[in-house]
């Protein structure tokens, strides 16, 4: 599990205040069920050991491609989904956070009774899944969400007044004409007005619906709003309106945002700090300027190189990535990005699956592979139907066609009859490393240099 040391987490985002949300080793796995009995045959590891803080008044951008787990993480933070493991803490004081990190740094079985007591106290006061009723109510009021799809996020049968006024009704904050006035002032704060009270969502354009969504999120005057791709479904001219509005509201109300998006331009504009996710894990984390000026992780660099930017030199070509995102039910060992990484080295986590998928991509791979006997992710025996194919595969694997990094990680290739034994150097998962000034990255290249 990756845990931030208190110092590094404290350094990040020096402008902002105490953390509103503190994530420690958050995991969310979805079971894959199969057959009539719905037996669990595997886990999709949507989010894996993610830790960071979201500090008061700042915007944390969460960026990554589809399927990287950013939306799932957003749902965990907003309390819509419970994480499988790890903790999400609400309004932890700096002191408690330091204590928490201290306790979490100790392995569970080695914790002293006092440490356990401390943990229990913090958990029950702040951890989302363990909050008591009144603390939960405070959390629920103070953490709101704006969803991507403004069409499905508004109940088609409710009037705007009921939609925006609903949180006020739930908390019995207002009723009757008082409620109406509160709703009007909320609508006005998002650039709409009294004339929209008695209309249905389908009577509005996408941008207006998103404004209604924002008004609803503001109704209880929350501290913190999760913005899940709030402008992805909008046209650029309307997107600009909404982004400006979100910025103004943040200034006026001192809001904290978790801004989830796949659009690097938007994230860069809106965020103070940015976390980049790939295949369920955080690969880089730092201030917006740092991350865009000096991206460290090869994946971040690839994202930036592929991102079209209107202000950039038009003659600079966009560069894409080879291959596809691996299956999150069976993520690569070591660094999860190594299968597509242009600068991968031997220590990046090459494993049996990489060899098999590389072999099966090649045109000469025989169809006679009958079994893969695994001793570990890094050590296996490939069983073929005949001796000749085993020999040719072994030859291919020790030949010059193998990617250099993979070849360097390959310790043994040996043939016995119809079997080929392959063994790779075994590697642990890569942890986030602090590069200074709250810029963290999980790339082996920086770990080694240290």
């Amino acid at each position, binding site marked *: 599990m990756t845990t931030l040391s208190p110092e590094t987490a404290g350094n990040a985002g020096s402008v902002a205040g105490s953390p509103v949300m503190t994530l420690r080793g958050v995991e969310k796995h979805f079971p894959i069920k199969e057959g009539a009995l719905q037996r669990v045959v595997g886990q999709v590891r949507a989010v894996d050991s993610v830790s960071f803080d979201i500090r008061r008044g700042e915007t944390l951008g969460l960026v990554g491609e589809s399927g990287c787990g950013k939306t799932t993480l957003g749902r965990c933070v907003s309390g819509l989904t419970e994480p499988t493991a790890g903790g999400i803490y609400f309004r932890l004081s700096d002191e408690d956070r330091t204590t928490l990190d201290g306790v979490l740094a100790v392995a569970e079985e080695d914790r002293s009774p006092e440490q356990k007591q401390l943990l229990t106290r913090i958990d029950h006061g702040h951890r989302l899944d363990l909050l008591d009723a009144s603390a939960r109510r405070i959390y629920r009021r103070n953490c709101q969400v704006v969803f991507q799809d403004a069409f499905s996020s508004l109940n088609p049968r409710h009037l705007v007044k009921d939609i925006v006024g609903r949180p006020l009704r739930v908390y019995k904050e207002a009723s009757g004409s008082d409620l109406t006035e509160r709703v009007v002032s909320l609508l006005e704060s998002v650039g709409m007005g009294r004339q929209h009270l008695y209309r249905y969502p389908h009577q509005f354009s996408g941008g207006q619906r998103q404004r209604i969504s924002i008004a609803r999120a503001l109704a209880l005057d929350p501290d913190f709003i999760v913005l899940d791709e709030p402008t992805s479904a909008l046209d650029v001219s309307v997107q*600009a309106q909404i982004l400006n509005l979100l910025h103004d509201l943040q200034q006026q109300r001192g809001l904290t945002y978790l801004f989830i998006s796949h659009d690097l331009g938007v994230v860069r504009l809106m965020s103070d700090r940015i976390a980049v996710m790939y295949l369920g894990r955080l690969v880089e984390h730092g201030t917006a300027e740092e991350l865009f000026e000096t991206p460290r992780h090869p994946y971040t660099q690839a994202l930036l190189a592929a*991102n079209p930017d209107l202000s950039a030199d038009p*003659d600079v070509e*966009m560069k894409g990535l080879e291959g596809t995102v691996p299956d999150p039910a069976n993520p690569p060992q070591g660094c999860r990005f190594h299968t597509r990484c242009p600068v991968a080295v031997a220590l990046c986590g090459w494993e049996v699956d990489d060899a098999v998928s590389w072999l099966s991509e090649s045109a000469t791979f025989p169809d006679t592979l009958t079994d893969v006997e695994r001793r570990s992710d890094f050590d296996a025996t490939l069983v073929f139907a005949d001796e000749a194919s085993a020999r040719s595969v072994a030859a291919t694997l020790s030949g010059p066609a193998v990617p250099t990094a993979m070849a360097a990680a390959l310790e043994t290739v040996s043939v016995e009859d119809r079997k080929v034994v392959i063994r790779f150097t075994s590697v642990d998962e890569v942890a986030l490393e602090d590069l200074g000034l709250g810029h963290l990255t999980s790339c082996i290249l920086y770990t080694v240099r240290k």
Partner: protein
Amino acid sequence: MTAPAASPPTRSTAPLVISVKDLQVHFKVKTGVVHAVDGVSFDVRDGETLGLVGETGCGKTVTARSFLRLVKTPPGIYAGGRIDFWSGDARRSGAGPVDLLRVPDREMLAIRGDRIAMIFQDPAKALNPSMSIGDQVAEVLYQHRSDDLVDDQPEHVPRMLRRASRQLTTGPERLALRLPPWRKRASRLRRRGDELVAAALAETQIANPRKIMDRYPHELSGGMKQRVMIAQALACNPDLLIADEPTTALDVTVQARILELIADLQRRHGTSVLYISHDLSLVRQMCDRVAVMYAGRIVETGNTRTVFSDPLHPYTRGLMAAVPSASQKRGELLAIEGNVPELIDPPASCRFHTRCGFAVALCEQADPELLEIRHGHGVACLAYASAGKLGVPNAALPLVDGSTR
């Protein structure tokens, strides 16, 4: 990727492939007639990439779909104008163009997928989930390239085999083709088909086409599916490729690869491309020329480089300022206020006047034409119109920074 600079300056003299004149496509709805495309004119020349850029509902997709008459009628109505198309053969033989809006259905079938091909936004929806990749690509070949399938046959090609090459055989014929003496020739035909399919897939840099051919769409990633679509579209080496938001459903890292691929294939085959996108930065990267659409009209057109470095129309300017980029500050994006107007029976006025910061009274009364201001750079804005022709005093015209009176 082709940078606009790489395009030769003689491009404007290259022969025409498509010439759209005053195209009007309307849709009948309960409350009136929606003028989705309302008097659009542009040309696509041989080997060039024209970008059609605009926001949702501006009519760019409807324009492209009417090239292949894919707009459903009703509710659609081809209300006017023409789309002249010169196929490669027509250009070589000096024959005139055909009007795509009026060619007989049979001829349209022969053009679709063969002379003009289209790639769609969502490859997951455009591929048939119950057909193997190989069969789907082969379908295009059977439809349009049946002669290529039989041209390696050793002797005279009997009729039944020809029919087989078009997939027109009946049940008994298919049975006969499985038995001697036909079996050998039929399997040769199939092998030939597979070869052509594999070659088409290899063109799109699919590493292992023979293996991909046996797979089904759900087994492939989004980027891979889009490659298959491109292979299918380019299998017959069309004169015009219509790419309708080909990368909108893809991740950025994959998008870059697909665009690279399209540009590369275009360079090698000399295909003209009509590239439709809402993303200004992609259009700037991909296209030689660009046409900006708003509310069913083209408001600005010209060389990509000029339009992007010196946009004339207030809408184009607004659109470019609204895109978040590294140089912009938070909260200071220049949004275009308001929303796209209703296009039901629109009045004769500038469509943009409701959202335009420079609009004056005249903009509500006069409908600006697309006028060529500089060489190849046209704009439809009254600020650039001639007061004399409109019969109004100079002072009645709106004043947009840099517009000349």
